[in-house]
């Protein structure tokens, strides 16, 4: 028993010693590990800081809004997304102090159809969905036929806007008639009201419906397009904001289109980029409106197909290019 006691007592004290010993070692170890962790952490942090702050010479070329090509470091780029509300607001407001006007010279159109493809590309349309189309015209049996590109006329007295029951289509201060596909209910009153047949209806799912999934809707581009709503020519409102000519105007190879600001009395040819005085151009060439008797006051002028530089080969020649 005694023996046992003798043996147990030291064991007990040993335990006590052990425990006190372990606390001491614990603190010792804790101190060591803590110091090591702090040093390691600091090292990792400084490494991270360096990694973040070190000059990165990987540059990206960026085209600024005022059409300048600049280089910015790749790591400095921040992705900004225009939210829907802001886009809708600026789309409704339009550009102050402008009155856009288009002049189409029928003498030069030879049905190259570049305007149509450029437009369809920009607005994600199928080859048979048109914002602009070139029609074959012949006034009477004895007069010469000609090609007539026909976009939306962006009337100053738009019948389509007057009939819209939900304020989805509207006229802006710069004269452009736009459609808000977010508001459009697809009643097609505007299609019936438009005397120029400028509007189209999305009967089927739009062309790039899957690719456009998640893209913020742009009221000035009508992209993504929406099934069951109206779409039409927008005078490329998104391009005008950037100071660029509309898609159709700049893609014409034959110099058919002029576009400009009526307030500045100037229009620029999309092919040659030459600028003319609007009033002089219309006066010299006998410019006219389509169906002026309707009182719609279009913003698109036509120059008659006089002194044509090429032969009209009838409807057979779908793609004729200057050579």
């Amino acid at each position, binding site marked *: 028993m005694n023996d046992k006691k003798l043996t147990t007592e030291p064991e007990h004290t040993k335990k006590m010693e052990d425990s006190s010993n372990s606390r001491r070692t614990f603190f010792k170890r804790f101190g060591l590990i803590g110091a090591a962790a702090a040093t390691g952490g600091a090292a990792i942090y400084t490494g991270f800081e360096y990694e973040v702050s070190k000059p990165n010479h990987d540059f990206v070329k960026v085209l600024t809004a005022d059409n300048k090509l600049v280089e910015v470091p790749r790591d400095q780029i921040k992705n900004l997304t225009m939210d829907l509300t802001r886009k809708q607001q600026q789309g409704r407001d339009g550009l102050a102090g402008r009155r856009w006007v288009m002049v189409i010279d029928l003498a030069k159109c030879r049905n190259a159809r570049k305007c149509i493809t450029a437009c369809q590309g920009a607005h994600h349309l199928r080859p048979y969905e048109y914002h602009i189309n070139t029609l074959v015209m012949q006034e009477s049996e004895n007069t010469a036929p000609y090609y007539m590109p026909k976009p939306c006329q962006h009337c100053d007295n738009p019948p389509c806007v007057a009939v819209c029951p939900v304020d989805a289509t509207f006229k802006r*201060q710069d004269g452009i008639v736009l459609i808000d596909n977010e508001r459009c209910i697809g009643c097609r009153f505007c299609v019936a009201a438009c005397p120029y047949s400028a509007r189209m209806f999305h009967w089927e799912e739009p062309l790039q419906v899957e690719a456009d999934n998640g893209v913020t809707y742009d009221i000035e581009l009508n992209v993504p397009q929406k099934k069951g709503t109206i779409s039409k020519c927008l005078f490329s409102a998104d391009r005008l904001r950037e*100071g660029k000519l509309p898609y159709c105007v700049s893609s014409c190879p034959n110099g058919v289109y002029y576009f400009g600001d009526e*307030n500045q*009395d*100037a229009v620029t040819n999309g092919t*040659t980029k030459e600028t003319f005085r609007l009033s002089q151009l219309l006066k010299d060439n006998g410019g006219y409106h389509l169906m002026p008797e309707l009182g719609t006051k279009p913003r698109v002028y036509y120059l008659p197909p006089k002194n044509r530089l090429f032969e009209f080969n009838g409807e057979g020649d779908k793609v004729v*290019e*200057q*050579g």
Partner: protein
Amino acid sequence: MKISYLLTAIISLVTLQVSAQEWVVPAEKSASLSPFAFSDSTRKAGGDLYNLNCKSCHGDPGKNNAVKLVPMPPDPASAQLQGNSDGAMFHKVAEGRGLMPAFKNTLSASDLWRVVSFIRGFNEKYVQEVAQKLSLGTSLENVKFAINWNNELNQLQVTVTALKALTRQPVPGAEMKLSVRRYFGNLQVDGVHTTDNQGVAVFNFPKGLPGDSLGFVQLQLKPVDETAFGEIKVDTTMAIGVPTYRPPLNKERAMWNVVGKTPIWLLLTYLITVLTVWGLIVYVMLQLRAIYKSGEEDDSRSKSKVE
């Protein structure tokens, strides 16, 4: 006999075809040379311009990835394109033909030469010949342009001077062009004018040309021959346009405008109609109530009489 006719016809047809495809550049244009030596910096600037304006059709030089058009846009590194003289290349880019757009109104002469310098970078055998500075009778040093407005004559006086023997002297015979900045490009006014012996050229400012709301217009004065003068131009703003303010197109009340801009006549017609109809309904209801009430009174009177 017939065969020889046929042969001549075929030969003439073939030659016609060839001449139709050939792009003839006037000899003096073909012989023109760049005013500056091509260097890495001009090639880099030219490359940026190429990527912006040419790449979408011509593709990357040397990679034969041009867009398949008819006719095919040639690769800038190809022998077909490098076979052109510097002047011919400049002329073709400036003037354009068919599907190839003209760049004379979008790029300055110096920028066009930078593009040529970029294209020449893909030709190892190329050795550049730089133009001698054109003299115009004097050696042009430190050329300066000035614009003055003559209010009485509605004219702009342009003065061209240069340093000669350390004194500022007029430059005669300099062809100048003046343009007004518009939204999509510059509107050239009153053609090209040549400076006289006093180094002065006079431009008639077109009547009725709109300026901003205060009549300010941005003017740009440039020499026609940028090769001789270099990249000198004067940009200035003068209040010589017609002050123009036109209200926004959606400002007026109209049938098509938003609810807040309803035409007064429509608003009045609508309100009067609605109020009349409702007034009539209310009037009829009141009358019915009066009849009902008078009936009740009659009833109570007859009842009290009976009692």
